[in-house]
Each structure stands twice: as C-alpha cells, then as structure tokens.
C-alpha cells in the first residue's frame, strides 16, 4: 500500500489565507521543507505559497519560519480542507 494523500476540500473560494511577507523572506526554504503538501515554491530569491489550493492548513510553515515572513490566516467559513474519519 502506498501513502496516498487523499484529501477532500469544501467547494468555494478560501481567500488568500497564507501570504509571504516579501520584505522579511530570506529565501531559506524552511517553509517548503516542512510543508508536506508542496504549497511553497521558490520564486526568484524568495518563496511563495503558490499551491495554496493544496494546503492542509496545518500551520507548519508559520511555526517554522524564523523570520516572521509567513502570514498565516484562516480560510473563509465553510471552505478549505475537509477531513473525514479524524
């Protein structure tokens, strides 16, 4: 059996609930390293949450960033990741 990241999402626009603070990002890449869902992608000198639609909303990126460059909010009500069998 292979680990299959089977994740369900509510329909609807989550809004841009994770952003990068371009001034603070040093491009260290810890956000990408600790993101299991490959949300963070290198773009020039910094990282951006380009694959936000794949986010599982765990918050590892916000917690791990030493430079306070991750702005971590919340998806709009009733949107975003939906877990079953939790």
């Amino acid at each position: 059996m292979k680990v299959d990241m089977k994740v369900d999402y509510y329909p609807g626009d989550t809004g841009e609930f994770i952003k990068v603070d371009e001034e603070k990002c040093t491009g260290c890449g810890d956000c990408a390293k600790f993101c299991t869902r490959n949300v963070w992608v290198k773009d020039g000198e910094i990282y951006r949450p380009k694959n936000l639609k794949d986010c599982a909303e765990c918050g590892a990126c916000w917690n791990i960033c030493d430079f306070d460059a991750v702005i971590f909010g919340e998806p709009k009500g009733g949107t975003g990741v939906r877990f079953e069998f939790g």
Partner: protein
Amino acid sequence: MRTKFPTIRRNEKRKTQPSQNITNNKKDDLSMGNSEYDIIVVGAGCAGPAAAKKAAELGLKVLLLEKSQKPGEKNVSGTCLNMAALVDPDLQYLMKGPIEREITEMHTYMITPERTTMMRETPSEGLILLSVRRDEYDAWHTEEAKKAGAEVKLSTTVMDIIEENGTITGVVTDSGEKYFGKVIIDAAGVNSIIGRKAGLIPKRKGDKMILYTILNVWLGEEVVNERFGNSIYYFLGPNTQHKTWPWIFPKKDVVTIGTGGYMDDDLFKGDIKSVNDYMQNLIDLPIIKEKLEGGKVEAWGLHLEFDEEVEKRTKDRLILTGEAGGFVIPFLGEGMPEALFTGIYAAEAAAKAIEANDFSAEFLEEHFMSRINENVFMQSFRYIADLNKKSIMSMPDQEIAAMMQNVVIGGGFISNAIHTSWMKGAEEDDMGLVQDAKDFYDLIQPYRQVGSESVEIYKKMRAEK
C-alpha cells in the same frame, strides 16, 4: 507533586478593566443586542461544545462559532477518548455520543532489524478507550450544546478580535460580522488566530511541536474485527517515527494510522524527506503490511500538536482552552480529555466572572486553573509525560529502543515515571524525589485500573442515550 502547571498567586491584586460597551449586570440580558452575548466560544472541536454546553446550562447567553460546515471536519486527529477521564462526573455524558469501537486492549511492538517483540498489555478489566470519528462525534457534541441552549453558527471563521482599551470585547468573522461577549473562550485549536492575536500563542518548533500525519485505511467491519479486534497498537520501528510512537487505532470499519515527529533539525534526514516517508516505512513493516492487506486509503490528514504549555491561558475577558491553551500531551497521545475538561472549567470560570463582575486575567486564571490543578487525570498525565519525555528527548534512537523495551516490560510509562523519580532520588540522596514518586503512585491508584465500575457507568449512559 511537581507539575509544570503554574501556581496561582492568590494574593495578587486584581485589576478590572470593564469595557465601556459591555454591561456586566445579568439583568441586562434582555436588553442585549443580537450581537451581544455573555460568552462567545470559538471552535467546535472538543473544548468548544463542552464550554458552550456548560455555559448554556449555567443560564448564560452563549454563541458558538465554527469554521467548518460540519463540526469535526477540520479535525485530523484525537481518535480515542480515555475512560480514565470519562468516569469523571463532568465528562460522563460524553459516553452517550457516537462511539465507533470499545477498546479493551493494547498491543505494543518493538521492531528492530533483528527481531520483533510483541507485548500485549491489558491494563484494565474493563474499557480503556472509546474510539470515535471526530466528524461524527464533534457534530453530535455541538448538537448537545445547542439542545442546552447555545446558539451555533457553522461555516463561520473568526478572522480577528475586537479590542477596546486593550481589552478583548469581541470577534470579527470572515463575513465582517461583529459579535461581542463578556468573556471569549478560545477553543480554536493549536494555531488559533485568537490566541495568536491576543499575544498568548507563540510560534513553536523543535521539541515543542510535533508534525503528524494520519492515514485512514478502509477494511470493512469484519476485517477490522478479525485483524485488530478491540485493541489499539503502538509501534517503535526503524525510520518509522522521530522520537514519538506510531500507532494504529481501529474505528468501526476503518483503522487510523498515525506517525511523525518533533519539528527539529533531525525530523527530515537521509531518505526521510517528509512525514509521509515515515508513514510509508511504517505501513511497509511486514507485521503492518499483513494487517492492511486488501485495504484502501480512504483519507489522509496532517496536523501539528503543541508539546509545551503556553505561559498564560488568560487575558482580561479571554480564556484559552484545549489545544489553543496548550492542553495537550502529544507524547502520550492525550488531548481530547484535556480539551473537554478545560472547556467546562473555562465556562465555569466565565460564569463566576460574570457573577462577580470581575473579568480580569487574574480572576479568570484563578478560577480556571484551580479546577485544573485539582484534576487528578490532568495532573497525573502531565507528570507521566514530563518524566518520560525528558528521557526520550535526551537519548539517541538505540537507547530509546532499549528504554522502550524496558518500559514495555515494566508496564509502561506510568512505571517509568515512578521508577525515574524514585531512582534519581535514591542516587542523589534526595528524599523529596522519592516522596514525589510515592505521592504520584498513590495519586494514580484510582486511575491505574479502570475496572468494572467504569463499565457500569458506561452501560448506564448508553442505556440513557
């Protein structure tokens, strides 16, 4: 007994900062606007519905806000309710909820390249855990809060707090609605936006945060019965975890598998690039592979667990509960009972604050923490976790494996906690430590064996359901 819960400074002068916009007189309830409440609870996981239900039962006007469409659908884990906690009179009603499986046994496997050691432990004559599905259980619990009189709004995300003169007086939702409360109870989880905005929840990593992944595998009820029965399973194997304990908990027709590790520099190394790699190694272990044969991955999940308390759980008009307040012991896989207890205690502390017209952080803390410090379950689990975690964080993997074997043979973490204190006391000629161990041993006696009495309570509650 030594615990890390802060002691309460009872004589500290209380400062009250009543907000201009909020009336503190109960008689004014009738004149409250539609957006004004006695208590606003944010988050309908474990702590939130417990708090809302209790507050409503105490006659308060309560609003419970939840970001998901159905409570529990944002919760990845928290899969088994501990009967040692559920026998507490405050929590007994929770036995009436939707239960997936009644757990009566525990198996622990030590797996090294050379051999596999299996220890079967049956720590109780009766039930030890109740396995639940959070998307069913939290939804049921929220209905219970509603029945008690709490107003519930789903699909409603709290985006911000409202502060007046430095005091939190309300919350703003994603649609821009403002709700005002005399007390705000934060039950919004490990990364709660309320606790963060209030400056109480810091960033955490290293030995203070665990990154965990969950795999739910569908096997069908008959196969789960046959291969897993009513037992939970713990494993310690090569490259299957980072200083934590992978586990498999059976539900009705699926099993939930969890593994991951502390978010330090060694979480990812060598072939391990993600927590999914630990999971893959785990389900590839022959003993597990066999048990999952023919199964289908039904759902995958990912979450963080905070493994150190936040320094302060209260601010004027605000109480942090459950994971938001750091009331979780991921090391022991315990979080739901702590959330349930702290939700109830927060509602009681808030009711006292309204009664006394004192909404200061100090007043709330005194009434909140005094209940926690009297709670045998919470105190003993913190003690067990502290001592065992200290051992594990300081050891290389091989030594952990050896220690784990001793722990397993010696009867688990409880024995290890007692043994650690006792031996350290003996070695250092510190009778205080020995006394500590003895006090703890006495303290946990009622909880060491959740026996026939708990089964009777369970039967009674199920009959009342």
